[in-house]
């Protein structure tokens, strides 16, 4: 029973981080109709920056200070996004999708090596926070408290995002642009500004995902590509461009992955792809996608 509970918490932990990554990806696609192959690298970037700030720069500082430093990775990813969109992506909106994919794929290669260049080939950790949170006992099992915080942040981010998109003026503009970019432009929406804002917000979410997970798992090379593949599975299941879909997809993938690790550790990834393929064969546009 307790083991089952641990599995459920683990699934939710995983789902929270996945939602942050996939939600950002889906948001960007929903508004801009562009798929950023390098999205996972922004998550990795967030993880590296936080690990660097917490684990290296402020190592030994009191825990509250370290916690304050946690969002640094998310901010850094947001700034990077705000620079990338106008410089690298904007020239490609009018060109065939192949070119957009190629450019973001090139960006993926650049960011991957750039992080290796800056932080070296070895894992970077910020485990001080993780350790300081200690653990609690659930039944007879000892479980790290920090993981519950991650789930909390994931849930908070989801509700904040929902409120932001459905309850604010900016959300209205965002949704209008995603429905019909030309019409929104004709009605006086500054589409360029909306695009850079949406892209920055999406990158912020990815960076936040990296920042909150890095105390419990080190930042390593290659985490970006793993993340982007999983995030795509999430959005493929949920429907590209739908935030609700990203949430449901993240939860499904979280549970499937946990079950996969528990019962089929060898082919855990294959189980995930199988789940995604099953959803796709049944509903090609995903559970919440517009067909």
């Amino acid at each position: 029973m307790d083991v089952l509970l641990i599995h459920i918490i683990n699934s939710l932990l995983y789902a929270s981080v996945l939602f942050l990554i996939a939600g950002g990806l889906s948001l960007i696609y929903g508004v801009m109709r562009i798929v950023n192959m390098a999205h996972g690298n922004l998550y990795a970037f967030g993880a590296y920056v936080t690990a660097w700030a917490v684990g290296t720069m402020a190592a030994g500082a009191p825990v509250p200070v370290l916690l304050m430093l946690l969002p640094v990775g998310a901010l850094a990813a947001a700034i990077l996004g705000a620079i990338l969109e106008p410089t690298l992506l904007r020239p490609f909106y009018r060109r065939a999708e192949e070119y957009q994919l190629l450019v973001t794929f090139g960006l993926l290669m650049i960011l991957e090596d750039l992080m290796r260049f800056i932080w070296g080939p070895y894992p970077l950790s910020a485990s001080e926070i993780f350790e300081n949170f200690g653990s609690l006992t659930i039944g007879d099992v000892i479980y790290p408290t920090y993981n519950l915080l991650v789930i909390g942040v994931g849930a908070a981010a989801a509700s904040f995002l929902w409120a932001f998109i459905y309850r604010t003026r900016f959300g209205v503009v965002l949704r209008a642009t995603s429905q019909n970019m030309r019409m929104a432009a004709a009605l006086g929406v500054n589409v360029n500004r909306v695009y850079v804002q949406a892209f920055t917000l999406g990158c912020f979410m990815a960076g936040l995902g990296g920042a909150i997970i890095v105390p419990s798992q080190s930042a390593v090379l290659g985490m970006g590509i793993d993340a982007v593949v999983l995030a795509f599975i999430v959005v493929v299941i949920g429907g590209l461009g739908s935030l609700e879909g990203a949430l449901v997809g993240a939860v499904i993938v979280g549970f499937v992955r946990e079950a996969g690790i528990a019962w089929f550790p060898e082919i855990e990834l294959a189980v995930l792809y199988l789940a995604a393929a099953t959803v796709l064969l049944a509903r090609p546009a995903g559970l919440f996608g517009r067909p």
Partner: protein
Amino acid sequence: MSAPTRVLGQPRAGSSSRALLVAAPIAALLAVVPLVVPPYGAILLAYGLVMAIGALGFNLLLGYTGLLSFGHSAYFGVGAYSVALMVKYLRVGSMELFLLGAIVGSVIVTAVFGIVCVRYTRIFFGILTLALSQVLWSLAFKFFWVTGGTDGLRVPTPSLFGGLVTGAGDKTVFMSHAYYYYVLILFGACVALMWVIVNSPFGMALQAIRDNETRAEFVGVRIWRYRWVAFLVSGVFTGLAGALWVPLNGLTTPDIMHWTFSGELVFMTVLGGFRSFAGPVVGAIVFNYLKTYAVGYTVYWQLVLGVVLVTLVLSLPTGIVGSAEKLLARFQRSRP
């Protein structure tokens, strides 16, 4: 516009004979390479020709069918591992059997992957192919008792032409002469075969699907089937390249299944120009030299690739071959 569309499908007797006119001197040039350059140079070129076969296969999807695969490393890897597993479990040493095994292996894998992937286009296709290749990569890691894990599997020098030529003597001599010619012959056969395919009614149907999926369906082309066959042919070409690559390298590791290798295939094709038939071939050979020399200078090879890719797409989207054709056309126009 693009070379394949300009040459393709038009009932001009000249199109294929003109291609022969270009191909014949290049073939002759490639044939004398081992006689005039040092063995290392010939082996390097053999690597380039092998990659060219893989890129040619890749571009049947990108250039002709309009599908961008980020997972072709999988089929290259299937070809390579088919050979390595035949050595390990069946003690086979004949290159012809290796090729047969690689074809069978890649047909099976691409047939299954294809069923899932061809229902999707654009980014969905790209991600599905990427995801499936990463699955194979992780399997190659985890089932180490079969695949040798990160250590990989060794492949000894094979015998060629049903045992007529064996690699008994010096390995460098064998690779730079006998094996070089073996690769060259297969390269020629693959280029010729691909040329026929893209100029066949089937090849026209693929281009129709690329240009306009809905209309293709409404002239009676069953798009999933055609995409699936294209996927199969593309994967088998790349698998064949993998099989030819293993003896050259002497070893196969999971690295060749990793997405970064798919990225290299994408890169060489875009470098050469995916809108022209010869683009991927030129791109693969140029890339091979570029990589060999650049890797010696920097460990941040991926970074260099990324920057060049972005610059290429920004400023030279037609690649080397497309740009050269444009220059040539301008040159011809400027003369009376």
